[in-house]
């Protein structure tokens, strides 16, 4: 099993390298930081701009290939992801923000998965009853709402509750209030800022898992091996729990890989809307500033997130699926 996972990891490393390189070429050939520098006051001469960019390793006169080699050498030899046009290292800026994003994603991904699978099982056991219809309709509804709009509506609702009660119950932007005492007040403050974005991501995220889990479980409920188990004297619920559940989770586990990037993209939107200074917020900002190195670093981060999701999916599959253990 470990050998199998290592092999998968090696494939993903190659893929991350390829996607990041492709992203670098795309960014370096479409982004022109020199034009932004021209907007400064006092206006620098083109020579000054070229000189200042060249000092940061962003020389616009070099060919994309030479810049790629220079950039790649920096990463391989010094783990240096380059500099921004405005100065400042990408490594430092990324390091500050990655934990903000991770905090947001981990809770949301975990809640989404647990709630989605639990509700999927719940609704499959009550097929076509009122509770099933309500929950499944809701899940289908989340398919036709764009994530940022849903987050924005949650934000509006939170503001409305704040206004209605006349108190600051929810914080709809930012990650913390400046000047809060450390310890318990800081923790309360953190949770208050955390609740709304996490709630928003989870709310629109679990629909996909719910529908998938319900569908796969229903496909298995009437399978021969479940009937055999019932014939041996198990109740319907026992048979489902001990036999159908595990089998139906296998395809759901495999979709984790493709849901993690979706939540990641959702996290981008959430960061943009709730003004969380995470990687997503930063990358959109950096792209607006024509920052080639920062844009590529976030692309690489996105690919790594996908690979982590895919490996988690493989791991989950190997844990629940006895057939995979041989490899």
């Amino acid at each position, binding site marked *: 099993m470990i050998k199998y996972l290592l092999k998968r990891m090696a*494939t993903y490393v190659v*893929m*991350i390298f*390829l*996607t990041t390189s*492709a*992203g670098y070429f*795309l*960014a370096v050939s*479409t*982004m*022109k930081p020199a*034009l*932004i520098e021209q907007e400064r006051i006092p206006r620098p001469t083109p020579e000054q701009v070229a000189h200042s960019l060249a000092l940061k390793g962003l020389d616009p006169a070099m060919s994309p290939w030479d810049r790629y080699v220079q950039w790649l050498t920096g990463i391989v030899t010094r783990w240096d992801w380059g500099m921004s046009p405005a100065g400042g290292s990408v490594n430092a800026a990324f390091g500050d923000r990655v934990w903000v994003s991770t905090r947001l994603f981990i809770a949301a991904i975990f809640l989404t998965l647990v709630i989605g699978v639990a509700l999927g099982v719940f609704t499959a056991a009550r097929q076509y009853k009122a509770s099933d219809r309500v929950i499944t309709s809701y899940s*289908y509804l989340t*398919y*036709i*709402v*764009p*994530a*940022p*709009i849903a987050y*924005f509506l949650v934000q*509006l609702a939170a503001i409305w509750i704040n206004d209605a009660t006349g108190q600051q119950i929810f914080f709809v932007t930012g990650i913390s209030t400046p000047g809060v005492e450390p310890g318990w007040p800081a923790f309360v403050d953190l949770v208050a800022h955390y609740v709304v974005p996490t709630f928003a991501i989870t709310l629109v995220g679990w629909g996909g898992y719910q529908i998938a889990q319900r*569908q796969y479980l229903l496909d298995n409920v009437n399978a021969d091996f479940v009937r055999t188990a019932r014939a041996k004297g198990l109740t319907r619920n026992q048979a489902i729990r001990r036999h159908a559940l595990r089998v139906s989770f296998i395809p759901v586990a495999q979709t984790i890989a*493709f849901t993690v*990037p979706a939540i*990641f*993209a959702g996290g*981008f*939107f959430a960061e*943009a*809307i709730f003004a969380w200074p995470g990687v997503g917020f930063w*990358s*959109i900002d950096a*792209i*607006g500033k*024509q920052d080639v190195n920062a*844009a590529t670093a*976030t*692309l690489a981060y*996105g*690919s790594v997130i*996908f*690979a982590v999701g895919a490996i988690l999916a493989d791991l989950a599959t190997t844990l629940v699926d006895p057939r995979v253990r041989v490899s």
Partner: protein
Amino acid sequence: MSTVDAVQPETEADVLTTDDGVVIAKGVIIFRRFLRNKTAVAGLILFLALTVFSLVGQFLTPWTKNDIDPAFIGEGPSADHFFGTTQAGVDLYVLMVEGVRTSILIGLIVGVGSMLVAAVYGCVMAFYGGKVDKVMLFILEALIMMPSLLVVAVVTSGNGGDLKDALPSWFLLTVVLLVFGWMGAARLIRSISMSLIERDYVKAARYMGVSTWRIVWKHLIPNIGSLLVLEITRGVTLAILSEVAYSFIGIGIKPPDMSLGILIGQASQQVSSFPWMFWFPLLAMFALTGSMAMMNDGLRDAFDPSSSSVGKAKKSRKARKNTVEAAA
């Protein structure tokens, strides 16, 4: 995802014969089943109405998107301005006509285009298998790994770039959505085609020396046809959603191009002072994606040979009696 039942590949299978000996073409059956699903028909009508609105809506109002009405600046809906005006005094109705048109256009191009790419790619992978399959799967997974959100932002962002000056932003967005929109469907088509290729009649055709393209055309396409139609409606919905999502946070389509996403995004800044500017485009978007979802459901039922959710065609009492007598 319904499992694919092996449809007999020959043309005789495309027709069914009723008890009275009347022959009904398969397309007619699917069409009738679709019509029997009220929700799906309502979805279709809603979608057609929105399309007509986006095409001829312009002629129902004297305003254009370049007109500024100084008498109505940031005013709510009225007889002069059906959906009110923006804070610059531009008629919202006209902007929405163009916005809906852009969204439908992007949706249709991306939905149909990405399905075609997915079908060809998935079938080729399944058909050749082995090394070809491995390499193509690698490319496919690498594309899934690229965060398309960032690529959209890079391609459509800011100033500069010869490409960006030459092409309108909605076209750039369409291209990116096409490039990143087909992978999921291709995986699905690959796995279904693989199981089809293992079927005996495909093996038989291969041994008989039937050409590759004929096998794909005659055996694979008819069997995955229903899936392809569903992928189109799903792809259209996804493309519209992506456009709105990206434009909402300020990447994707840029003014002067107009889309529902831009209208919603711009209006979200002052939703309390100009609520109509936010809610009208948002309702239009829900109508658009909702109509696709309603149709999707009806299409799935219409194509699913074992569907029983829309009631079977009722036999007349006489026909039933005949069957009983024939059996006896």
